[in-house]
């Protein structure tokens, strides 16, 4: 069985403009594989094809890319899930391309840094051992802490495409809410102050592209809604 691919190629040292390159791969009839496995196989015949990958099991978040128009992790996306026709692979949209499927994630990380993604606790005597929580407080972090920062969500969000310097983006805001809701964090007001403008949170119009593409099944739109509610409750 022959599988056909159309893969985005761009090497700024050589190419004047990006182009799509056609590839084909012979696989056994009925055999399925992940997109990453197919890319690795294609790279054997064309070593110039560039993409990021590391854990190859959906944990590290390195191989986020756009497959047949939808962002996802190549290592956990089976070819069978992409239909029978040609498979079109492009880099994550909205981010500058370094080479082929490798994107520059500086804007994404800058927004992530903005939300101070670490526990802030100004208690005089923090516990010297484990910083434990009540089970119900710990349960509030479920659906938030699992984010692996693959950028599939933020790079599928038009608000992030148009204002990557001001809108924190779904991934950053999911993490922001993870710390806002953490019973051990004492910087809730400071965190909300940082988000209290017309762009950081409120550029989210709830179109839920982020929810649709998240490879971990998380719901950034819901977390953003909770942040909006927290900001509103504080203002009224």
């Amino acid at each position, binding site marked *: 069985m022959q599988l056909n691919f159309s893969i985005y190629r761009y090497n700024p040292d050589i190419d004047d403009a990006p182009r799509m390159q056609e590839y084909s791969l012979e696989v056994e009839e009925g055999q399925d594989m992940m997109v990453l496995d197919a890319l690795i196989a294609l790279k054997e015949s064309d070593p110039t094809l560039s993409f990021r990958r590391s854990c190859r099991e959906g944990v590290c978040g390195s191989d986020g890319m756009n497959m047949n128009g939808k962002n996802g992790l190549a290592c956990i996306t089976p070819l069978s899930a992409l239909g029978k026709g040609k498979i079109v692979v492009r880099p994550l949209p909205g981010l500058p391309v370094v080479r082929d499927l490798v994107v520059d994630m500086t804007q994404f990380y800058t927004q992530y840094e903005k939300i101070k993604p670490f526990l802030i606790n100004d208690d005089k005597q923090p516990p010297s051992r484990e910083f434990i929580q009540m089970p119900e407080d710990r349960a509030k972090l479920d659906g938030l802490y699992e984010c692996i920062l693959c950028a599939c969500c933020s790079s599928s969000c038009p608000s992030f495409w148009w*204002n990557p*310097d001001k809108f924190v983006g779904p991934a950053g805001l999911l993490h922001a809410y993870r710390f806002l809701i953490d019973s051990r964090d004492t910087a809730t007001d400071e965190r909300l102050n940082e988000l209290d*403008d*017309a*762009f950081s949170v409120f*550029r989210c*119009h709830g179109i839920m592209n982020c929810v649709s593409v998240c490879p971990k099944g998380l719901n950034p739109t819901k977390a953003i809604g909770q942040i909006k509610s927290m900001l509103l409750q504080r*203002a009224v």
Partner: protein
Amino acid sequence: MVTNQASMKRNGIQDWVSLRATAVIIALYSFYLTFVFFTSPALTYEIWQGIFASLFMKVFTFATLVSIMLHVRIGLWQVLTDYIKPTGLRAGIQYVLNLIAFAYVAVGLFVLWGV
């Protein structure tokens, strides 16, 4: 880049609440007008004028027109800051579109006065 004070100092919460508050009025008016439209046996000029002659309908219509203007003002600012990056051009387009939105309210008001 949207860097000017006028844009960054906008209040996100206020815009968010205003959009929803005005949307409720616009939706209610749309439902009410649809209801009137379908429950009137025949829509002659006299019946149509009678509907808008009541003080309730005049106030409701004017509140809706103002709501649309406020809704449009915030919505346009959001769309324009997304798509038009040169500040001068964006400010110019924003000014003209806001004037047009105001003109619609003024025209609506004069029409209501005339009924």
